[in-house]
Protein backbone atom coordinates (compact mmCIF):
# COMPACT_ATOMS: atom_id res chain seq x y z
CA UNK A 1 0.00 0.00 0.00
CA UNK A 2 1.19 3.49 -0.75
CA UNK A 3 2.41 5.71 2.05
CA UNK A 4 -0.57 8.06 1.67
CA UNK A 5 -2.95 5.13 1.80
CA UNK A 6 -1.31 3.87 4.97
CA UNK A 7 -1.76 7.22 6.68
CA UNK A 8 -5.47 7.17 5.91
CA UNK A 9 -6.22 3.75 7.32
CA UNK A 10 -3.95 3.90 10.34
CA UNK A 11 -6.88 3.27 12.68
CA UNK A 12 -4.89 1.79 15.51
CA UNK A 13 -1.95 4.17 15.63
CA UNK A 14 -1.37 6.07 18.82
CA UNK A 15 -2.89 9.18 17.27
CA UNK A 16 -6.17 7.51 16.45
CA UNK A 17 -8.18 7.85 13.29
CA UNK A 18 -8.07 11.60 12.60
CA UNK A 19 -7.73 11.61 8.83
CA UNK A 20 -11.33 10.71 8.06
CA UNK A 21 -12.72 13.46 10.35
CA UNK A 22 -10.35 15.85 8.57
CA UNK A 23 -11.76 14.84 5.20
CA UNK A 24 -15.30 15.29 6.54
CA UNK A 25 -14.38 18.75 7.88
CA UNK A 26 -12.86 19.80 4.55
CA UNK A 27 -15.93 18.47 2.77
CA UNK A 28 -18.22 20.43 5.15
CA UNK A 29 -16.18 23.59 4.64
CA UNK A 30 -16.31 23.26 0.86
CA UNK A 31 -20.01 22.46 0.91
CA UNK A 32 -20.83 25.46 3.11
CA UNK A 33 -18.66 27.77 1.05
CA UNK A 34 -20.47 26.67 -2.09
CA UNK A 35 -24.02 26.75 -0.70
CA UNK A 36 -24.10 29.74 1.66
CA UNK A 37 -22.84 33.02 0.26
CA UNK A 38 -22.17 34.56 3.69
CA UNK A 39 -20.05 31.67 4.85
CA UNK A 40 -16.67 32.79 3.54
CA UNK A 41 -17.18 36.40 4.62
CA UNK A 42 -14.51 37.82 6.92
CA UNK A 43 -17.08 38.40 9.68
CA UNK A 44 -18.38 34.83 9.61
CA UNK A 45 -14.91 33.27 9.69
CA UNK A 46 -14.12 35.45 12.71
CA UNK A 47 -17.37 34.35 14.37
CA UNK A 48 -16.42 30.77 13.66
CA UNK A 49 -13.10 31.29 15.43
CA UNK A 50 -14.73 32.99 18.40
CA UNK A 51 -17.30 30.20 18.70
CA UNK A 52 -14.68 27.47 18.46
CA UNK A 53 -12.07 28.94 20.84
CA UNK A 54 -13.76 28.09 24.18
CA UNK A 55 -14.65 24.64 22.86
CA UNK A 56 -11.02 24.08 21.79
CA UNK A 57 -9.79 25.10 25.25
CA UNK A 58 -12.21 22.82 27.09
CA UNK A 59 -11.63 19.94 24.66
CA UNK A 60 -7.83 19.99 25.06
CA UNK A 61 -8.31 19.53 28.80
CA UNK A 62 -10.98 16.88 28.25
CA UNK A 63 -8.65 15.00 25.89
CA UNK A 64 -5.85 14.97 28.45
CA UNK A 65 -8.21 13.30 30.95
CA UNK A 66 -9.62 10.88 28.37
CA UNK A 67 -6.08 9.80 27.46
CA UNK A 68 -5.65 8.43 31.00
CA UNK A 69 -8.90 6.44 30.77
CA UNK A 70 -10.87 9.14 32.56
CA UNK A 71 -13.69 11.51 31.75
CA UNK A 72 -14.33 14.98 33.14
CA UNK A 73 -18.01 15.92 33.30
CA UNK A 74 -17.30 18.89 35.57
CA UNK A 75 -15.74 21.13 32.90
CA UNK A 76 -19.05 22.85 32.17
CA UNK A 77 -19.63 23.85 35.77
CA UNK A 78 -16.03 25.07 36.03
CA UNK A 79 -16.61 27.32 33.00
CA UNK A 80 -19.77 28.71 34.64
CA UNK A 81 -18.08 29.21 38.00
CA UNK A 82 -15.17 31.04 36.36
CA UNK A 83 -17.45 33.53 34.64
CA UNK A 84 -19.20 33.98 37.99
CA UNK A 85 -15.96 34.75 39.83
CA UNK A 86 -14.75 37.10 37.08
CA UNK A 87 -17.98 39.09 37.20
CA UNK A 88 -17.55 39.83 40.91
CA UNK A 89 -16.71 43.39 41.78
CA UNK A 90 -12.95 43.01 42.20
CA UNK A 91 -9.82 43.96 40.23
CA UNK A 92 -8.45 41.61 37.58
CA UNK A 93 -5.31 40.70 39.51
CA UNK A 94 -7.61 39.23 42.20
CA UNK A 95 -10.36 37.59 40.14
CA UNK A 96 -8.22 35.82 37.52
CA UNK A 97 -5.88 34.08 40.00
CA UNK A 98 -8.87 33.31 42.23
CA UNK A 99 -10.69 31.71 39.30
CA UNK A 100 -7.67 29.65 38.24
CA UNK A 101 -7.01 28.58 41.83
CA UNK A 102 -10.65 27.54 42.31
CA UNK A 103 -10.48 25.52 39.09
CA UNK A 104 -7.26 23.86 40.24
CA UNK A 105 -8.94 22.91 43.52
CA UNK A 106 -11.90 21.41 41.62
CA UNK A 107 -9.49 19.43 39.45
CA UNK A 108 -7.58 18.31 42.53
CA UNK A 109 -10.81 17.08 44.14
CA UNK A 110 -11.68 15.15 40.97
CA UNK A 111 -8.21 13.68 40.80
CA UNK A 112 -8.02 12.73 44.48
CA UNK A 113 -11.45 11.09 44.34
CA UNK A 114 -10.43 9.10 41.25
CA UNK A 115 -6.89 8.11 42.24
CA UNK A 116 -6.88 7.88 46.05
CA UNK A 117 -10.45 6.84 46.73
CA UNK A 118 -10.92 4.82 43.53
CA UNK A 119 -14.23 6.42 42.70
CA UNK A 120 -15.21 5.84 39.09
CA UNK A 121 -14.28 8.99 37.08
CA UNK A 122 -17.86 9.48 35.92
CA UNK A 123 -19.34 9.31 39.41
CA UNK A 124 -16.58 11.48 40.87
CA UNK A 125 -16.79 14.22 38.27
CA UNK A 126 -20.60 14.08 38.20
CA UNK A 127 -20.84 14.70 41.94
CA UNK A 128 -18.21 17.43 41.77
CA UNK A 129 -20.24 18.96 38.91
CA UNK A 130 -23.16 19.25 41.31
CA UNK A 131 -21.02 20.89 43.98
CA UNK A 132 -19.30 23.29 41.54
CA UNK A 133 -22.60 24.20 39.88
CA UNK A 134 -24.06 24.93 43.31
CA UNK A 135 -21.13 27.20 44.16
CA UNK A 136 -21.46 28.91 40.75
CA UNK A 137 -25.14 29.62 41.42
CA UNK A 138 -24.23 30.87 44.88
CA UNK A 139 -21.57 33.24 43.49
CA UNK A 140 -23.82 34.49 40.68
CA UNK A 141 -27.48 33.45 41.08
CA UNK A 142 -28.48 34.74 37.63
CA UNK A 143 -26.71 36.10 34.57
CA UNK A 144 -25.31 39.57 35.14
CA UNK A 145 -22.52 41.56 36.75
CA UNK A 146 -19.70 43.22 34.89
CA UNK A 147 -16.35 41.81 33.89
CA UNK A 148 -13.24 43.98 34.14
CA UNK A 149 -12.53 45.90 30.88
CA UNK A 150 -9.03 44.38 30.66
CA UNK A 151 -10.51 40.92 30.12
CA UNK A 152 -13.02 42.22 27.60
CA UNK A 153 -10.15 43.86 25.70
CA UNK A 154 -8.16 40.63 25.89
CA UNK A 155 -10.92 38.85 23.99
CA UNK A 156 -12.42 41.34 21.58
CA UNK A 157 -9.47 43.52 20.56
CA UNK A 158 -6.64 43.06 18.12
CA UNK A 159 -2.93 42.52 18.61
CA UNK A 160 -0.66 43.54 15.72
CA UNK A 161 -3.69 43.39 13.45
CA UNK A 162 -4.54 39.82 14.44
CA UNK A 163 -7.89 39.28 16.10
CA UNK A 164 -7.69 38.10 19.70
CA UNK A 165 -9.69 34.82 19.34
CA UNK A 166 -7.13 33.73 16.74
CA UNK A 167 -4.31 34.47 19.17
CA UNK A 168 -6.10 32.56 21.96
CA UNK A 169 -6.56 29.57 19.67
CA UNK A 170 -2.90 29.56 18.60
CA UNK A 171 -1.74 29.89 22.22
CA UNK A 172 -4.02 27.02 23.27
CA UNK A 173 -2.66 24.85 20.46
CA UNK A 174 0.96 25.60 21.39
CA UNK A 175 0.41 24.88 25.09
CA UNK A 176 -1.63 21.78 24.29
CA UNK A 177 1.03 20.52 21.86
CA UNK A 178 3.77 21.01 24.42
CA UNK A 179 1.79 19.13 27.09
CA UNK A 180 0.49 16.23 25.01
CA UNK A 181 3.04 15.61 22.27
CA UNK A 182 6.29 17.25 23.32
CA UNK A 183 6.81 16.42 26.97
CA UNK A 184 7.58 13.46 29.16
CA UNK A 185 4.29 14.07 30.96
CA UNK A 186 2.41 13.68 27.66
CA UNK A 187 4.17 10.43 26.90
CA UNK A 188 3.23 9.16 30.34
CA UNK A 189 -0.43 10.07 29.70
CA UNK A 190 -0.46 7.78 26.65
CA UNK A 191 1.33 5.05 28.59
CA UNK A 192 -1.11 5.17 31.52
CA UNK A 193 -4.11 5.09 29.20
CA UNK A 194 -2.58 2.37 27.07
CA UNK A 195 -2.50 -0.45 29.55
CA UNK A 196 -2.30 -1.80 33.04
CA UNK A 197 1.47 -2.07 33.08
CA UNK A 198 2.50 1.60 33.04
CA UNK A 199 3.14 1.46 36.80
CA UNK A 200 5.61 -1.40 36.46
CA UNK A 201 7.72 0.70 34.12
CA UNK A 202 8.18 3.36 36.75
CA UNK A 203 5.47 5.78 35.68
CA UNK A 204 3.79 7.55 38.59
CA UNK A 205 0.22 6.67 37.55
CA UNK A 206 -1.59 8.36 40.41
CA UNK A 207 0.37 11.60 40.28
CA UNK A 208 0.07 11.95 36.51
CA UNK A 209 -3.64 11.14 36.56
CA UNK A 210 -4.12 13.76 39.27
CA UNK A 211 -2.22 16.28 37.15
CA UNK A 212 -4.43 15.43 34.15
CA UNK A 213 -7.59 16.30 36.10
CA UNK A 214 -6.07 19.55 37.41
CA UNK A 215 -5.03 20.51 33.86
CA UNK A 216 -8.51 19.76 32.53
CA UNK A 217 -10.09 22.07 35.11
CA UNK A 218 -7.53 24.80 34.39
CA UNK A 219 -8.20 24.60 30.63
CA UNK A 220 -11.93 24.85 31.40
CA UNK A 221 -11.27 27.91 33.57
CA UNK A 222 -9.34 29.51 30.70
CA UNK A 223 -12.36 28.89 28.47
CA UNK A 224 -14.43 30.55 31.19
CA UNK A 225 -12.17 33.61 31.12
CA UNK A 226 -12.56 33.83 27.34
CA UNK A 227 -16.35 33.51 27.54
CA UNK A 228 -16.61 36.04 30.38
CA UNK A 229 -14.67 38.52 28.24
CA UNK A 230 -16.94 37.84 25.28
CA UNK A 231 -20.27 38.32 27.04
CA UNK A 232 -18.76 40.88 29.48
CA UNK A 233 -20.76 39.39 32.37
CA UNK A 234 -21.16 36.24 34.43
CA UNK A 235 -23.66 33.45 33.80
CA UNK A 236 -24.15 30.39 36.04
CA UNK A 237 -25.48 28.33 33.13
CA UNK A 238 -23.17 29.33 30.29
CA UNK A 239 -20.99 26.24 30.62
CA UNK A 240 -23.76 23.63 30.65
CA UNK A 241 -23.22 22.46 27.07
CA UNK A 242 -19.44 22.14 27.28
CA UNK A 243 -19.27 18.76 29.02
CA UNK A 244 -21.09 17.00 26.20
CA UNK A 245 -19.68 19.18 23.41
CA UNK A 246 -16.10 18.63 24.50
CA UNK A 247 -16.58 14.86 24.73
CA UNK A 248 -18.18 14.92 21.26
CA UNK A 249 -15.31 16.96 19.83
CA UNK A 250 -12.66 14.70 21.37
CA UNK A 251 -14.43 11.56 20.15
CA UNK A 252 -14.98 13.06 16.68
CA UNK A 253 -11.25 13.67 16.42
CA UNK A 254 -10.47 9.98 16.71
CA UNK A 255 -9.48 9.88 20.38
CA UNK A 256 -10.53 6.56 21.91
CA UNK A 257 -12.67 7.04 25.01
CA UNK A 258 -11.12 3.85 26.38
CA UNK A 259 -7.89 5.81 26.79
CA UNK A 260 -4.36 5.70 25.44
CA UNK A 261 -5.10 6.68 21.83
CA UNK A 262 -5.63 10.22 20.66
CA UNK A 263 -4.05 13.37 19.36
CA UNK A 264 -4.19 17.13 19.70
CA UNK A 265 -4.68 17.61 15.96
CA UNK A 266 -7.56 15.13 16.05
CA UNK A 267 -9.21 17.09 18.85
CA UNK A 268 -8.75 20.35 16.92
CA UNK A 269 -10.35 18.75 13.86
CA UNK A 270 -13.22 17.53 16.05
CA UNK A 271 -13.76 21.05 17.46
CA UNK A 272 -13.55 22.56 13.97
CA UNK A 273 -16.07 20.04 12.64
CA UNK A 274 -18.53 20.75 15.48
CA UNK A 275 -18.15 24.51 14.98
CA UNK A 276 -18.64 24.12 11.21
CA UNK A 277 -21.79 22.05 11.71
CA UNK A 278 -23.23 24.57 14.19
CA UNK A 279 -22.32 27.49 11.94
CA UNK A 280 -23.72 25.78 8.87
CA UNK A 281 -27.02 25.00 10.59
CA UNK A 282 -27.25 28.61 11.74
CA UNK A 283 -26.71 29.86 8.18
CA UNK A 284 -29.35 27.44 6.93
CA UNK A 285 -31.78 28.65 9.65
CA UNK A 286 -32.12 25.29 11.37
CA UNK A 287 -34.02 25.48 14.68
CA UNK A 288 -31.77 25.61 17.76
CA UNK A 289 -33.62 22.60 19.18
CA UNK A 290 -32.97 20.54 16.07
CA UNK A 291 -29.30 21.56 16.34
CA UNK A 292 -29.12 19.89 19.75
CA UNK A 293 -30.77 16.80 18.28
CA UNK A 294 -28.15 16.71 15.49
CA UNK A 295 -25.28 17.15 17.99
CA UNK A 296 -26.60 14.29 20.11
CA UNK A 297 -27.04 12.09 17.05
CA UNK A 298 -23.45 12.80 15.93
CA UNK A 299 -22.18 11.83 19.38
CA UNK A 300 -24.20 8.58 19.27
CA UNK A 301 -22.87 7.77 15.80
CA UNK A 302 -19.24 8.45 16.65
CA UNK A 303 -19.47 6.45 19.86
CA UNK A 304 -21.09 3.52 18.07
CA UNK A 305 -18.15 3.51 15.63
CA UNK A 306 -15.61 3.19 18.46
CA UNK A 307 -15.72 -0.45 19.49
CA UNK A 308 -14.34 -1.27 22.94
CA UNK A 309 -13.47 -4.43 24.78
CA UNK A 310 -15.72 -4.06 27.81
CA UNK A 311 -19.44 -3.44 28.17
CA UNK A 312 -20.77 -0.69 30.37
CA UNK A 313 -19.38 2.62 31.55
Amino acid at each position, binding site marked *: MSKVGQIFVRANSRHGLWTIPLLVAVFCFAGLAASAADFVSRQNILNLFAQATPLILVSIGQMIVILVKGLDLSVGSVVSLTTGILSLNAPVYVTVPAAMLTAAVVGLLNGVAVTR*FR*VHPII*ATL*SITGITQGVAMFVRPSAGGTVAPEIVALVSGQLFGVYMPVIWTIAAILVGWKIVHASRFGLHLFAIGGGETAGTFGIAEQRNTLAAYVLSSCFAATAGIFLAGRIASGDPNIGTQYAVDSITAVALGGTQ*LAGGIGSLHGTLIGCGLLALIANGMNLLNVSAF*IQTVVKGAILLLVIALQPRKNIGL
Partner: protein
Amino acid sequence: MTSRSSLFRATLRIPPSCIVFVVLLVTLWVLRPNMMNPAILGTFARQVVPLGIVVLGQLLVISSRSIDLSAGGIILLVNYLISSGLLYSWPLPPIILLCLGVGLAVGLVNGLFVGKRRASAVIVTLAVNIVLIGLVEYLANGKPPGDVPAEFRALYNLRLWTIPAPVLFWVALAGTMSAFLGAFVFGRFVWSIGSNPTSAHFSGVPVERAVVIAHVISGLMSAVAGLVQTSSIAVGSVRFGPELIMNSIAATILGGVVFGRPAEVWGPFVGVLCFALLFVVMTTMGVQEPGKLIVQGLIILLAAIFYGLRSKSN
Protein backbone atom coordinates in the same frame (compact mmCIF):
# COMPACT_ATOMS: atom_id res chain seq x y z
CA MET B 1 -9.36 -7.11 67.69
CA THR B 2 -11.23 -9.62 65.59
CA SER B 3 -14.55 -8.77 67.21
CA ARG B 4 -13.93 -5.09 66.57
CA SER B 5 -13.14 -5.64 62.94
CA SER B 6 -16.17 -7.87 62.44
CA LEU B 7 -18.35 -5.20 64.04
CA PHE B 8 -16.74 -2.71 61.66
CA ARG B 9 -17.54 -4.98 58.74
CA ALA B 10 -21.13 -5.44 59.88
CA THR B 11 -21.55 -1.66 60.02
CA LEU B 12 -20.12 -1.40 56.53
CA ARG B 13 -22.64 -3.91 55.27
CA ILE B 14 -25.63 -1.73 56.20
CA PRO B 15 -26.48 0.52 53.25
CA PRO B 16 -25.46 4.09 54.10
CA SER B 17 -29.01 5.15 53.20
CA CYS B 18 -30.38 3.59 56.39
CA ILE B 19 -27.90 5.51 58.56
CA VAL B 20 -28.57 8.77 56.71
CA PHE B 21 -32.31 8.16 56.97
CA VAL B 22 -32.17 7.76 60.75
CA VAL B 23 -29.95 10.85 61.10
CA LEU B 24 -32.34 12.93 58.98
CA LEU B 25 -35.37 11.64 60.86
CA VAL B 26 -33.81 12.62 64.21
CA THR B 27 -32.81 16.02 62.80
CA LEU B 28 -36.35 16.67 61.64
CA TRP B 29 -37.78 15.44 64.93
CA VAL B 30 -35.56 17.88 66.84
CA LEU B 31 -36.06 20.82 64.48
CA ARG B 32 -39.76 20.48 63.62
CA PRO B 33 -41.57 17.97 65.87
CA ASN B 34 -44.92 18.96 64.41
CA MET B 35 -43.81 17.74 60.95
CA MET B 36 -43.72 14.14 62.21
CA ASN B 37 -47.24 13.46 61.04
CA PRO B 38 -48.16 10.66 58.62
CA ALA B 39 -50.29 12.90 56.41
CA ILE B 40 -47.54 15.51 56.00
CA LEU B 41 -44.77 12.96 55.54
CA GLY B 42 -46.98 11.13 53.04
CA THR B 43 -47.31 14.29 50.98
CA PHE B 44 -43.55 14.70 50.96
CA ALA B 45 -43.06 11.04 50.05
CA ARG B 46 -45.48 11.54 47.17
CA GLN B 47 -43.16 14.14 45.65
CA VAL B 48 -40.30 11.67 45.30
CA VAL B 49 -42.35 8.85 43.77
CA PRO B 50 -41.13 9.59 40.19
CA LEU B 51 -37.55 9.58 41.50
CA GLY B 52 -38.22 6.33 43.35
CA ILE B 53 -39.51 4.64 40.20
CA VAL B 54 -36.54 5.84 38.14
CA VAL B 55 -34.24 4.43 40.82
CA LEU B 56 -35.87 0.98 40.47
CA GLY B 57 -34.49 0.86 36.92
CA GLN B 58 -31.27 2.69 37.68
CA LEU B 59 -30.23 0.14 40.30
CA LEU B 60 -30.43 -2.69 37.77
CA VAL B 61 -28.35 -0.76 35.26
CA ILE B 62 -25.76 0.46 37.75
CA SER B 63 -25.42 -2.97 39.26
CA SER B 64 -24.63 -4.41 35.81
CA ARG B 65 -21.81 -1.85 35.49
CA SER B 66 -23.67 0.48 33.20
CA ILE B 67 -25.53 3.72 33.82
CA ASP B 68 -28.70 5.37 32.50
CA LEU B 69 -28.75 9.15 32.14
CA SER B 70 -31.71 9.26 29.76
CA ALA B 71 -34.53 9.27 32.35
CA GLY B 72 -35.07 13.04 32.04
CA GLY B 73 -35.58 12.84 28.29
CA ILE B 74 -38.00 9.92 28.52
CA ILE B 75 -40.07 11.64 31.22
CA LEU B 76 -40.15 14.80 29.12
CA LEU B 77 -41.32 12.88 26.05
CA VAL B 78 -44.04 11.02 27.99
CA ASN B 79 -45.11 14.33 29.49
CA TYR B 80 -45.30 15.89 26.03
CA LEU B 81 -47.25 12.98 24.53
CA ILE B 82 -49.92 13.23 27.24
CA SER B 83 -50.21 16.97 27.62
CA SER B 84 -49.73 18.17 24.04
CA GLY B 85 -53.35 17.49 23.15
CA LEU B 86 -52.41 15.11 20.31
CA LEU B 87 -54.07 12.21 22.08
CA TYR B 88 -57.10 13.94 23.63
CA SER B 89 -59.56 11.77 21.75
CA TRP B 90 -57.89 8.56 22.94
CA PRO B 91 -59.13 6.60 25.96
CA LEU B 92 -56.74 6.11 28.87
CA PRO B 93 -55.36 2.55 28.32
CA PRO B 94 -53.87 3.10 24.83
CA ILE B 95 -52.24 6.37 25.99
CA ILE B 96 -50.57 4.53 28.84
CA LEU B 97 -49.53 1.69 26.55
CA LEU B 98 -48.05 4.13 24.04
CA CYS B 99 -46.03 5.87 26.77
CA LEU B 100 -44.72 2.56 28.09
CA GLY B 101 -43.85 1.61 24.52
CA VAL B 102 -41.82 4.80 24.14
CA GLY B 103 -39.89 3.95 27.32
CA LEU B 104 -39.26 0.41 26.09
CA ALA B 105 -38.04 1.65 22.71
CA VAL B 106 -35.63 4.20 24.17
CA GLY B 107 -34.36 1.63 26.67
CA LEU B 108 -33.82 -0.82 23.83
CA VAL B 109 -31.82 1.73 21.83
CA ASN B 110 -29.67 2.45 24.91
CA GLY B 111 -29.26 -1.25 25.56
CA LEU B 112 -28.27 -2.12 21.99
CA PHE B 113 -25.67 0.66 21.84
CA VAL B 114 -24.23 -0.25 25.24
CA GLY B 115 -24.54 -4.02 25.10
CA LYS B 116 -24.10 -4.92 21.45
CA ARG B 117 -21.97 -2.04 20.17
CA ARG B 118 -20.09 -1.83 23.50
CA ALA B 119 -20.23 1.94 23.43
CA SER B 120 -19.71 3.86 26.64
CA ALA B 121 -22.98 3.89 28.59
CA VAL B 122 -22.52 7.41 29.93
CA ILE B 123 -22.02 8.90 26.48
CA VAL B 124 -24.78 6.88 24.82
CA THR B 125 -27.45 7.67 27.39
CA LEU B 126 -26.27 11.29 27.65
CA ALA B 127 -26.57 11.63 23.86
CA VAL B 128 -29.99 9.93 23.80
CA ASN B 129 -31.10 12.31 26.55
CA ILE B 130 -29.97 15.33 24.52
CA VAL B 131 -31.69 14.04 21.41
CA LEU B 132 -34.97 13.47 23.29
CA ILE B 133 -34.89 16.86 25.03
CA GLY B 134 -34.10 18.65 21.76
CA LEU B 135 -36.87 16.76 19.99
CA VAL B 136 -39.51 17.60 22.63
CA GLU B 137 -38.43 21.24 22.73
CA TYR B 138 -38.66 21.40 18.94
CA LEU B 139 -42.11 19.79 18.92
CA ALA B 140 -43.34 21.98 21.79
CA ASN B 141 -41.60 24.99 20.24
CA GLY B 142 -40.18 26.03 23.59
CA LYS B 143 -43.60 26.57 25.14
CA PRO B 144 -45.27 24.38 27.79
CA PRO B 145 -47.91 22.19 26.16
CA GLY B 146 -51.53 21.98 27.26
CA ASP B 147 -53.38 20.32 30.11
CA VAL B 148 -53.18 16.83 31.53
CA PRO B 149 -56.40 14.73 31.34
CA ALA B 150 -58.42 14.91 34.55
CA GLU B 151 -58.27 11.14 35.17
CA PHE B 152 -54.52 11.38 35.81
CA ARG B 153 -55.04 14.14 38.37
CA ALA B 154 -57.75 12.18 40.15
CA LEU B 155 -55.55 9.08 40.38
CA TYR B 156 -52.66 11.14 41.74
CA ASN B 157 -54.72 12.79 44.47
CA LEU B 158 -56.36 9.55 45.62
CA ARG B 159 -55.53 8.55 49.21
CA LEU B 160 -56.01 5.21 50.95
CA TRP B 161 -55.91 5.44 54.77
CA THR B 162 -54.13 8.83 54.49
CA ILE B 163 -51.37 7.25 52.40
CA PRO B 164 -51.29 8.81 48.91
CA ALA B 165 -52.00 6.37 46.08
CA PRO B 166 -48.71 7.14 44.22
CA VAL B 167 -46.72 6.11 47.30
CA LEU B 168 -48.61 2.83 47.54
CA PHE B 169 -48.03 2.28 43.82
CA TRP B 170 -44.31 2.90 44.31
CA VAL B 171 -44.10 0.46 47.23
CA ALA B 172 -45.97 -2.16 45.21
CA LEU B 173 -43.68 -1.64 42.22
CA ALA B 174 -40.57 -1.91 44.43
CA GLY B 175 -41.97 -5.09 45.96
CA THR B 176 -42.60 -6.53 42.49
CA MET B 177 -39.06 -5.65 41.41
CA SER B 178 -37.62 -7.22 44.55
CA ALA B 179 -39.64 -10.41 44.03
CA PHE B 180 -38.71 -10.46 40.32
CA LEU B 181 -34.99 -10.21 41.09
CA GLY B 182 -35.27 -12.89 43.75
CA ALA B 183 -37.37 -15.36 41.78
CA PHE B 184 -35.90 -15.19 38.28
CA VAL B 185 -32.46 -16.07 37.03
CA PHE B 186 -32.14 -12.58 35.57
CA GLY B 187 -31.59 -11.25 39.10
CA ARG B 188 -28.64 -13.62 39.50
CA PHE B 189 -27.27 -12.56 36.13
CA VAL B 190 -27.26 -8.93 37.21
CA TRP B 191 -25.58 -9.85 40.49
CA SER B 192 -22.84 -11.81 38.78
CA ILE B 193 -22.17 -9.17 36.12
CA GLY B 194 -21.96 -6.61 38.91
CA SER B 195 -19.31 -8.50 40.81
CA ASN B 196 -17.19 -9.50 37.80
CA PRO B 197 -18.29 -9.27 34.15
CA THR B 198 -15.43 -11.43 32.87
CA SER B 199 -16.07 -14.35 35.20
CA ALA B 200 -19.80 -13.94 34.62
CA HIS B 201 -19.17 -14.32 30.89
CA PHE B 202 -17.05 -17.42 31.37
CA SER B 203 -19.64 -18.89 33.73
CA GLY B 204 -22.17 -18.82 30.92
CA VAL B 205 -24.05 -15.66 31.83
CA PRO B 206 -25.37 -13.96 28.68
CA VAL B 207 -23.75 -10.66 29.64
CA GLU B 208 -24.74 -8.74 26.52
CA ARG B 209 -28.38 -9.78 26.71
CA ALA B 210 -28.62 -9.10 30.45
CA VAL B 211 -27.24 -5.58 29.97
CA VAL B 212 -29.71 -4.92 27.14
CA ILE B 213 -32.62 -6.18 29.27
CA ALA B 214 -31.48 -4.07 32.25
CA HIS B 215 -31.54 -0.99 30.00
CA VAL B 216 -34.96 -1.90 28.60
CA ILE B 217 -36.39 -2.24 32.12
CA SER B 218 -34.75 1.05 33.09
CA GLY B 219 -36.35 2.80 30.10
CA LEU B 220 -39.73 1.29 31.02
CA MET B 221 -39.37 2.50 34.62
CA SER B 222 -38.54 6.00 33.37
CA ALA B 223 -41.73 5.96 31.30
CA VAL B 224 -43.76 4.90 34.36
CA ALA B 225 -42.08 7.69 36.32
CA GLY B 226 -43.04 10.03 33.49
CA LEU B 227 -46.70 9.01 33.85
CA VAL B 228 -46.64 9.71 37.60
CA GLN B 229 -44.72 12.96 37.11
CA THR B 230 -47.24 14.09 34.49
CA SER B 231 -50.14 13.32 36.82
CA SER B 232 -48.55 15.40 39.54
CA ILE B 233 -48.65 18.65 37.61
CA ALA B 234 -51.80 20.34 36.43
CA VAL B 235 -50.23 21.49 33.17
CA GLY B 236 -47.61 19.82 31.06
CA SER B 237 -44.19 21.36 31.27
CA VAL B 238 -41.18 21.46 29.00
CA ARG B 239 -38.90 22.16 31.92
CA PHE B 240 -37.51 19.12 33.60
CA GLY B 241 -34.42 19.49 35.70
CA PRO B 242 -31.38 17.27 35.30
CA GLU B 243 -31.37 16.98 39.10
CA LEU B 244 -33.62 13.92 38.77
CA ILE B 245 -30.81 12.01 37.07
CA MET B 246 -28.26 13.09 39.65
CA ASN B 247 -30.63 12.21 42.48
CA SER B 248 -31.39 8.80 41.00
CA ILE B 249 -27.69 7.96 40.89
CA ALA B 250 -27.18 9.38 44.37
CA ALA B 251 -30.05 7.38 45.85
CA THR B 252 -28.84 4.20 44.17
CA ILE B 253 -25.28 4.55 45.41
CA LEU B 254 -26.49 5.64 48.83
CA GLY B 255 -28.64 2.52 48.91
CA GLY B 256 -25.61 0.28 48.64
CA VAL B 257 -25.70 -0.47 44.92
CA VAL B 258 -22.50 0.54 43.18
CA PHE B 259 -20.58 -0.83 40.25
CA GLY B 260 -19.58 -4.26 41.37
CA ARG B 261 -22.21 -4.58 44.08
CA PRO B 262 -25.36 -6.69 43.81
CA ALA B 263 -28.69 -5.19 42.86
CA GLU B 264 -30.79 -4.70 45.94
CA VAL B 265 -34.14 -2.91 45.95
CA TRP B 266 -34.76 -1.78 49.51
CA GLY B 267 -31.47 0.01 50.16
CA PRO B 268 -32.02 2.40 47.23
CA PHE B 269 -35.69 2.61 48.26
CA VAL B 270 -34.62 4.02 51.63
CA GLY B 271 -32.12 6.17 49.70
CA VAL B 272 -35.02 7.83 47.87
CA LEU B 273 -36.87 8.32 51.16
CA CYS B 274 -33.69 10.03 52.41
CA PHE B 275 -34.04 12.51 49.57
CA ALA B 276 -37.67 13.14 50.52
CA LEU B 277 -36.60 13.88 54.09
CA LEU B 278 -33.60 15.88 52.91
CA PHE B 279 -35.87 18.18 50.89
CA VAL B 280 -38.03 18.70 53.98
CA VAL B 281 -35.05 19.38 56.24
CA MET B 282 -33.36 21.70 53.75
CA THR B 283 -36.58 23.56 53.04
CA THR B 284 -37.31 24.07 56.74
CA MET B 285 -33.74 25.26 57.25
CA GLY B 286 -34.12 27.69 54.36
CA VAL B 287 -31.43 26.16 52.14
CA GLN B 288 -31.74 27.53 48.60
CA GLU B 289 -31.20 25.83 45.23
CA PRO B 290 -27.36 26.20 45.19
CA GLY B 291 -27.12 24.68 48.66
CA LYS B 292 -29.27 21.75 47.58
CA LEU B 293 -27.02 21.06 44.58
CA ILE B 294 -23.93 21.15 46.80
CA VAL B 295 -25.49 18.78 49.36
CA GLN B 296 -26.57 16.32 46.61
CA GLY B 297 -23.09 16.36 45.09
CA LEU B 298 -21.49 15.80 48.49
CA ILE B 299 -23.81 12.86 49.21
CA ILE B 300 -22.86 11.08 45.95
CA LEU B 301 -19.17 11.78 46.49
CA LEU B 302 -19.12 10.65 50.13
CA ALA B 303 -21.12 7.49 49.39
CA ALA B 304 -18.81 6.65 46.47
CA ILE B 305 -15.68 7.34 48.54
CA PHE B 306 -17.12 5.11 51.27
CA TYR B 307 -17.32 2.21 48.80
CA GLY B 308 -13.97 3.06 47.23
CA LEU B 309 -12.32 2.82 50.64
CA ARG B 310 -14.08 -0.43 51.39
CA SER B 311 -13.06 -2.10 48.13
CA LYS B 312 -9.49 -1.02 48.87
CA SER B 313 -9.48 -2.53 52.34
CA ASN B 314 -10.80 -5.89 51.07
